[in-house]
């Protein structure tokens, strides 16, 4: 079985649409997106309620989980960087994990084919 990798990309929400298109463009077949709150070097903001200030340091973000096999991991990482890099703090992180196996529920197919384009 070929190596399968999960790529987690945590980034700004407003980049989601563009990133999604870029990923489709390089042949990524699918992805799973979730809404997260991030905390890192990026400074939060201040909110005011009835004269009391609150420092909010959990910032809204999105996490994309992309499992790939055929599409080279480097290409995904490079493309993501290309789209997401603004050079300002808060651009986010990419984490890579090893996937032991994958199954496509609809067909029951396992391994790399579970996430490959069906011909």
């Amino acid at each position: 079985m070929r190596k399968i990798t999960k790529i987690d990309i945590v980034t700004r929400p407003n980049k989601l649409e563009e990133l999604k298109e870029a990923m489709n463009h390089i042949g990524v077949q699918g992805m799973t997106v979730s809404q997260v709150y991030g905390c890192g070097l990026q400074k939060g903001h201040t909110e005011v309620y009835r004269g009391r200030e609150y420092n909010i340091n959990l910032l809204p973000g999105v996490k994309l989980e992309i499992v790939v096999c055929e599409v080279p991991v480097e290409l995904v990482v490079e493309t993501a960087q290309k789209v997401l890099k603004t050079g300002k703090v808060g651009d986010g992180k990419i984490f890579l994990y090893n996937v032991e196996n994958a199954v496509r529920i609809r067909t029951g197919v396992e391994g790399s084919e579970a996430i490959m384009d069906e011909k």
Partner: protein
Amino acid sequence: MKGWINMKKTWSILCLTLLCMLFAIPAALAADPAEAAKIDTGDTAWVLMSAALVFIMTPGLGFFYGGMVRSKNVLTTIMQSFFIVAMISVEWVILGYAMTFGTDINGFIGSLAKVGLTGVGMNILDNGTIPELAFVAFQCMFAVITPALITGAFAERMRFAAFTVFILLWAIFIYNPMAHWVWGGGFLAQLGALDFAGGLVIHILSGVSGLTICILLGKRHGYGKLPMLPHHLPMTVLGATLLWFGWFGFNAGSALGANALAANAFVTSQSAAASATVAWVLIEWIHNGKPTILGAASGCIAGLVAITPAAGFVAPMPSVIIGLVAGVVCYTAVAVVKAKLSYDDSLDAFGVHGIGGTWGAIATGLWATKEVNPAGADGLFYGSSDLIVAQLISIVVAYALAIIGSFVLFKLVSAFMQVRVDESEEVSGLDIVEHGERGYAQSIMTGSPVIGSAEDAAMAMQAFSIDSDPVSK
């Protein structure tokens, strides 16, 4: 698509009819300024205001119902009420007012002489102190809310096209005649039945029709197995608030003047709504261990429904009892009986309006008194049994009309178009499937415009290609 083609036919006919009528416009104006002197400004102010109050009840009902469905159906549910406001208002000024309040023909229906409000002009209402147009407006809102009440019974599964056709037919062939029978000088009025603001005409009619339709339509997919919880209870409370608020116009406005009778109807409405709320919350506190806000919201509606036919005939203390009983009876209908009989009246249109309205019509026969309203009658507890008999007959008539009428119209509509959405559509939710909209857009869940100026699209594409070129190499 098939449904749509059928829709198109139906609508073309309607539009044609409409246009035809519009040629008759100048004739519609036959004002008699001489009479205008008799208008009472205070009464007029109150009736106009009441019309506005009753108006807000129907969108309010949309929120009441909308909060109780699952989020995937919130817009469909609100839309049903909101669109009814529009569709039935047009029907009312063109056709409904004439059918209901035109010169009586054999106690059965109004003559069509007033089609398109012909001859209404700036006239004063017969035997009234207000402009006839104020009465047209006030009654329009009643004609609007009645079919909207039904929508609670078939929520979350009816197609919008079939819905519009069914409701339009229902308004014309069921509501207008019934309203004529009771309020337009028809045979039930002659029989002596009392219905101050619409227990029979509005609540029994809509509640029982709802029950009929929801049985014919079948249960929602997964009903009884999957949980179907209200997705937004504050919205439901908002709806209940607007309903309660508007109901003051509904009941006290039905006095058609700003007088002691209106004040009496106002107070009885408030005390019945309040006591029904207390009763419903207490009974479920005892029965289920928790006092719920959905119970409070349901309770006030049950009380208001029950007092509707009685508001201008009974005194305040009986209204407290009517409310208490309404709370307990409707709770039982909704929480015990419905579960036993296992029909899927999604939002309890029958349990609250059908049952509450029936109780109210009976209660009117028990506690009505001429001391409150000399134009009314004395009920059983005030020494006469004539009234309660008339009330019971009217209830039977209303049930019969609602069941038979809704059954026939439902079958008729089913013959021409698909009435219920497909199972997969029901799972996806009707908001997306039927209206192409979502109630709440998650900031995360976006989309790219597919229509728009061609340049926009080209720009968007280009913008991306340039960026991505080096990558794809």
